[in-house]
């Protein structure tokens, strides 16, 4: 038994043999990924000296990427879990597209840490000798748990659709059909199965919501727990979290717009969805500027010597260009675009979302680097410098390419719109009864 969805054909349409243009895209993305991978091998052989890192700027672009990727990963959980608990039914068509961002960006968050480590081959020391005094262990636990539960959450909600693929896509190559058969775990689509699935997903949504708050907070505590000026503030946790949800939600807009265009899913991913996300984005950018002002006003008004060095370096010094571009990219332009232009206009929505994500990457950078450049012993040590090298950019490009590669490949083999969640009718609970018009289940 399968759910009845009038868009089923449309949603399954993108699942076909890879076309030439697919191959070209994969080739390019794979090429960039391999190039970055070889840059990493070179860095491993020669030493981290091939980066622009130094003393006192011990953390640079890699850690920026780590924070950014983990931030992107908040998209899926926000859309699927938090909106599920809040009973927002409109989220259904975009849950999977959003969760896929979570799933495919998390590994590259981890990869960014590996790229940053001086001794990546000793990474398992964290398991053998791990100690919970260190914020890195908090990160390791939270990100690990988040990744694991994201896989389970994603896979569970994919189950009915894999079964559907197994039964509908009979023309697919043998290996692909076998893959569906194995992955479907013998899903039959009994009403009871759907009922249980809903219950599990509801329960997991609560757990995931708690995790999503924890994850990005502990990521920020890697900085906040040190005594460095600019980092040692209680606001850093909530600020990182909000930024993560902002960039994650903006990433969903970009992904949706591309899917809609390329796979011609206009009917399912209708303009109303974008309008709903628009309101969320407006709220989050306003929240972001609120936190931004709260943080900088507190520091500026307090006027403590070491803190002010960092603050002024951002406002008027070395990092002024990046700082003010960031403010413009995350807040200034998007808020105007979103309020005045983006309603019923996907082009403007995507523009705002791209600006937000570039700005959010810069924000992570501007939180991390200026604090390191101006250490507390600045009058004695002098100001540090940091210029990322080609190796760092190559690895960055590679990790992003890897994420896109996984995402695009996934959409060729699995329905990116959840068929069962958007179905008009699910298999009914009553065995012989007349069909009860049952709306698709939700967490409402």
């Amino acid at each position, binding site marked *: 038994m399968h759910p009845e969805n009038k868009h089923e054909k449309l949603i399954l349409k993108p699942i076909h043999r890879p076309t030439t243009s697919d191959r070209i895209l994969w080739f390019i993305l794979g090429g960039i990924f391999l190039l970055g991978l070889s840059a990493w091998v070179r860095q491993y052989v*020669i*030493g*981290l*000296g091939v980066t*622009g*890192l*130094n*003393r*006192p*700027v*011990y*953390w640079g672009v890699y850690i920026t990427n780590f924070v950014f990727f983990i931030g992107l990963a908040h998209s899926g959980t926000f859309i699927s879990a938090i909106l599920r608990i809040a009973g927002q039914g409109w989220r259904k068509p975009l849950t999977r597209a959003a969760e896929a961002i979570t799933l495919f960006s998390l590994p590259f968050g981890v990869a960014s*840490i590996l790229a*940053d*480590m*001086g*001794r*990546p081959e*000793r*990474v398992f*020391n*964290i398991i*053998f*000798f*791990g*100690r919970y*005094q*260190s*914020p*890195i*262990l908090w990160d*390791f636990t939270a990100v690990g748990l988040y990744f694991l539960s994201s896989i389970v959450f994603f896979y569970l909600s994919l189950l009915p659709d894999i079964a559907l693929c197994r039964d509908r896509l009979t023309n697919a190559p043998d290996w692909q059909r076998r893959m569906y058969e194995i992955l479907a775990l013998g899903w039959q689509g009994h009403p009871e199965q759907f009922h249980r699935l809903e219950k599990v997903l509801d329960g997991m949504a609560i757990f995931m919501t708690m995790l999503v708050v924890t994850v990005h907070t502990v990521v920020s505590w*890697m900085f906040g*727990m*040190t*005594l*460095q000026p600019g980092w040692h503030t209680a606001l850093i946790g909530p600020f990182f979290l909000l930024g993560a949800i902002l960039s994650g939600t903006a990433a969903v807009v970009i992904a949706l717009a591309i899917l809609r265009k390329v796979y011609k899913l206009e009917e399912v991913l209708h303009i109303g969805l974008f309008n709903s996300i628009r309101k969320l984005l407006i709220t989050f950018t306003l929240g972001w500027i609120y936190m931004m002002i709260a943080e900088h006003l507190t520091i500026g008004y307090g006027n403590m010597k070491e803190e002010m060095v960092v603050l002024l370096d951002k406002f008027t010094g070395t990092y002024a260009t990046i700082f003010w571009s960031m403010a413009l990219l995350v807040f200034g332009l998007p808020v105007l675009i979103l309020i005045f232009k983006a309603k019923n206009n996907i082009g403007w929505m995507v523009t705002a979302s791209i600006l937000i994500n570039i700005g959010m990457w810069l924000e992570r950078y501007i939180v991390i680097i200026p604090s*390191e450049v101006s*250490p*507390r*012993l600045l*009058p*004695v*040590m002098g100001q*540090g*410098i940091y210029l990322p090298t080609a190796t760092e950019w190559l690895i960055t490009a590679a990790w992003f390419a890897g994420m896109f590669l996984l995402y695009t490949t996934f959409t060729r083999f699995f329905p990116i719109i959840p068929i069962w969640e958007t179905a008009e009718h699910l298999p009914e609970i009553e065995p012989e009864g007349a069909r009860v018009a049952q709306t698709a289940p939700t967490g409402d």
Partner: protein
Amino acid sequence: MPRWGMVIDLDKCFACQSCTAACRMENNTPIAGPDQAILGRAILWNEVLPFLEGEYPLVHATMIPRPCMHCDNPPCTAVCPVRATYKNEEGIVVVDYQRCIGCRMCTVACPYAIRYFNWFPPEWPQALKQHLNPDPEVAPRPKGVVEKCTFCIQRLHRAREKAAAEGRTFQATDYMPACVQTCTGHARYFGDLDDPNSLVSKLSHSPRAFRLLEELGTEPKVYYLKQG
């Protein structure tokens, strides 16, 4: 158990850098070379830093020799995810080079920036290579790990062994880091801070005594005696 500490008299220090050189020879710190040093990759467990106050013509310069502070409350050890760096029972903060994963959280957490990372495999000019300290405890560190001043802990171990071999009790005065031993102006003092009769303990209570970034509560065990 002694609690090792150091006092540096800034009145006596004339920034000759012999401590820096002695430290290098004792602890086999690699030579980064001028190109890398300019990028901030020089590894100097001990540095003599100029602290300039005011502007020309009213400039006041203080030279501050800076080893590791060996804080009693070290921010660097708490953040290490694998306990590769820790404060030993005698208050010395050390690094386990075999265990360090190179995440550099300790280097970021240290407000004194005294922890160094090996950006490359260690290197020396040929002439220096022949004169490395043969003590296995200071064998050159591999690339990708953090290293730092240890108050020449290998000297402590050797001094203990020597005392045992000679059949006498180990005295705090048997042990002295290389920078203290070499100090041309006799500006450095070293000993047990917990021994009220030790010179370091007395000097650390001098009205001239201060510590770097004392307000952070890290409780450094390196004291300075104010200049002037």
